[in-house]
């Protein structure tokens, strides 16, 4: 039982990373129906932005809390800048193009960003990430189940991110404009909503959350790598679809579910299908099963096809 609970905690932690990145996918998809495959790279850029802030910009001896805040801001600045440029120069010119064209653009952007960091970020791989929150600081959750500090931060960040985002989308003026644009861009424009600005806002919000995830991922694992966005991106997109794409709570729920399934399958799946080698496959198996029985994802609403 203790093992089970411990694995549950580990799954939640893994899921928190997926969920934070999934929020970016789900928001952009909800508004422009674009699978932004480059979003995984935005997550990666967030990690590198934070690392750059720490190693290059911050003087040594900066207090930890201040350093973390500045690293977060640095990571966000890089992620958001990349996302805005990407939206403006790669995706926006393709509105009205055949549906699949932006997908190839997304692929191109993804390769481009990955290679850009790989080739031009100073210092070679693997790049150590400062362990500002000591990973050996364990917090006892009772019954022998523990969680270390960086992981706890990740989970808190995911929950706070989701709550803040859904409050923003439901309550603020801009958030309601986002909902309107998602429902019907043409009518939204007629109501005086600047849809271009709303789309950029979605990219900016998604990128900010991805940067949070990039930073917490670095704190957890102690390294960043230019290729880390690819798999996380695919997983996060899976999480978004699992929860019902376009649905904010669904993205985080999907993230947690995916994380828990992967961790549990590693531990409990029948041999020889258990162990780390099969973990990724189990995540996709669950995705396929969920979609067979709930074609619109866990929290997705059944939308009537628009003529």
């Amino acid at each position, binding site marked *: 039982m203790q093992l089970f609970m411990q694995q549950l905690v580990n799954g939640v932690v893994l899921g928190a990373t997926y969920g934070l990145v999934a929020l970016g996918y789900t928001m952009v998809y909800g508004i422009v129906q674009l699978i932004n495959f480059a979003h995984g790279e935005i997550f990666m850029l967030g990690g590198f932005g934070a690392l750059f802030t720490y190693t290059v910009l911050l003087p040594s001896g900066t207090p930890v809390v201040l350093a973390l805040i500045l690293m977060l801001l640095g990571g966000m600045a890089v992620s958001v800048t990349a996302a805005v440029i990407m939206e403006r120069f790669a995706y926006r010119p393709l509105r009205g193009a055949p549906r699949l064209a932006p997908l190839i653009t997304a692929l191109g952007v993804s390769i481009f960003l990955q*290679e850009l960091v790989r080739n031009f970020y100073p210092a070679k791989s693997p790049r150590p990430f400062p362990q500002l929150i000591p990973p050996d600081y364990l917090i006892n959750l009772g019954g022998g189940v523990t969680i270390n500090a960086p992981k706890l931060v990740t989970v808190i960040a995911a929950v706070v991110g989701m709550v803040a985002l859904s409050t923003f989308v439901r309550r603020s003026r801009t958030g309601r404009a986002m909902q309107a644009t998602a429902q019907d861009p043409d009518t939204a424009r007629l109501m005086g909503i600047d849809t271009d600005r709303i789309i950029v806002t979605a990219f900016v919000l998604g990128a900010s959350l991805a940067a949070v995830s990039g930073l917490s991922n670095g704190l957890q694992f102690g390294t960043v790598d230019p290729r880390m966005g690819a798999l996380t991106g695919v997983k996060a997109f899976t999480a978004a679809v699992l929860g019902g794409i376009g649905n904010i709570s669904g993205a985080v729920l999907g993230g947690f579910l995916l994380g828990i399934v992967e961790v549990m399958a590693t531990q409990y799946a029948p041999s020889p299908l258990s162990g780390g080698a099969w973990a990724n496959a189990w995540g996709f198996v669950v995705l396929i099963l969920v979609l067979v029985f709930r074609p619109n994802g866990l929290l997705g609403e059944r939308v009537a096809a628009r003529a």
Partner: protein
Amino acid sequence: MSRDLSPKSLLGVAGAVATAVACFLPWSLYAGFPGKMLNTGFPGGARMYVLLLALAAVAVLLLDPPGRVRGMRGAAVWALVISLLTALLIGYAGGGLGKVAAGAWIAVAGSAALTASAYLLDSSSDRDRRVWSLPDADWRMPAEIVITLAMAGLALYVFVVGLGIPTSNVASGPDHTFRDAISLNDVTNGSEFLAFLFGIIGLFLVAGRIGLTASLGAITQRRRPALVTGATLAAIAFPFTQDGSPYALRIAASIGVFAAAAVGLNVVVGLAGLLDLGYIAFFGVGAYFAAIYSGSATSPIHVHLPFFLVIVLGALVAAVFGFVLGAPTLRLRGDYLAIVTLGFGEIFRISVNNLDGQSGPSLTNGPNGISNIPDLGLPGGFSFGDNHHLFGVPLPFQANYFFLEIVLVAAVMVAFLRLSDSRIGRAWVAIREDELAAAATGINTTRLKLLAFGLGATLAGAAGTVDAHVVKVAAPDSFTFIESTLLLAAVILGGMGTVPGALLGASVVYLLPEQLRFLHDLRLLVFGLVLILMMRLRPEGLVPSKRRQREFHERDDRSGALDPPPGAHA
């Protein structure tokens, strides 16, 4: 002929003449520069492309076709880019701008004048492009056939030239600072290929803007038998142009497999409109099936099946996978299906990675894959591993596989064309355009979508069995998500729903990273950039289907009628 003798056009003519003359003069005083840049009288190396672009620009300027100024701009800018880049690289490689001969500078000045002229002229007076056709005379049909065959020959020529340009003979200059970093040396080595690439882009722009591409497309479409004959002859002729060198043949054979898979994916994505992000898995099923039953020593099953049986069975096994995956998931809409196929692709990759006898049953030899797949043989004792001489030309054994590829691609193409012209194909297109409306007209959408999915998987499986023998190894790394997306990129870059599009797209997607190797680590970066730019410039693909072209055209007309003319108000 235009009577436009304004100073602006005269500047352009003067620039073009200067550029053209300069192309017959030596450009380099440094002998180590790649491409033949030293001699007088023959425009070797990059000079050839500058010359062609200058001639195209001045021809467009003087003949005044529709789209005149914009066409001229396309040629002029790229002529300037090539000549300037080449001049600077000669200076770099030779160790100083003194090594750049006068010819290069004249070409730079001339193409700059040409570019200036093209941008000074007013493009708003351009007439809309139209489709040209030959006069309705007795000689029209033979002339069209000749043009069609010539296009096939030209395609072969461009392919051979592009593949034949060496990109790695190291010129002198500072040594590499560290391994795999790019230096200007590498760019120098690749300069002739870059000139070729930019030249093609420039000429393509001109031809597109004055309506030549559309006209030639219309002619070749009308003469389909001639097109098929020409393309087949060109493909068969290719190994004979290589003078016994296996390098290009190996690449061409791989392009063939890639193209066959792209045509298969075109059934699923281009015709039926189902976004499949895990298509490579079906290809992998075929490849692994062939590898396991090839008699390779690394295969855990020591059974050697004859190849023709393997193709059929491999395709069937892939089809079974297609139907099994498709049956429960095809009722998902659009992008949900995309993620399921992506998931399936990953499951496949992870499975073959793990079926090594430790993490799972012993079947695929794990991450190392099944290697040393023996050469194919024909019943008459013919082995695909033998070199041959034919008509006095040495053919390395890779040519055998290349010919096998031609058969495969031809078979897949025939399947695609017969399907797309059939009742089934039209139903697929109807589903792609509007599934509800298609269902309302009595089309059984689920069954047809499943059929598209299954047939696509079958074609991929067949291509995979051949691939295993061409590359002689089946390993998990070849069947990753990125491979699926590259196949998709080939289909979309080329133009959805057309065979020439898929072939062209496959060539670009495969060939470009291959010939960009001189960029070392930067080649993928450049490739990503190229994908972005191509989608931005031609979102409908290089060779869009007629139906799609018409859609775009109609939209242009409509927006022209409803929107205010550009610049009417701020």
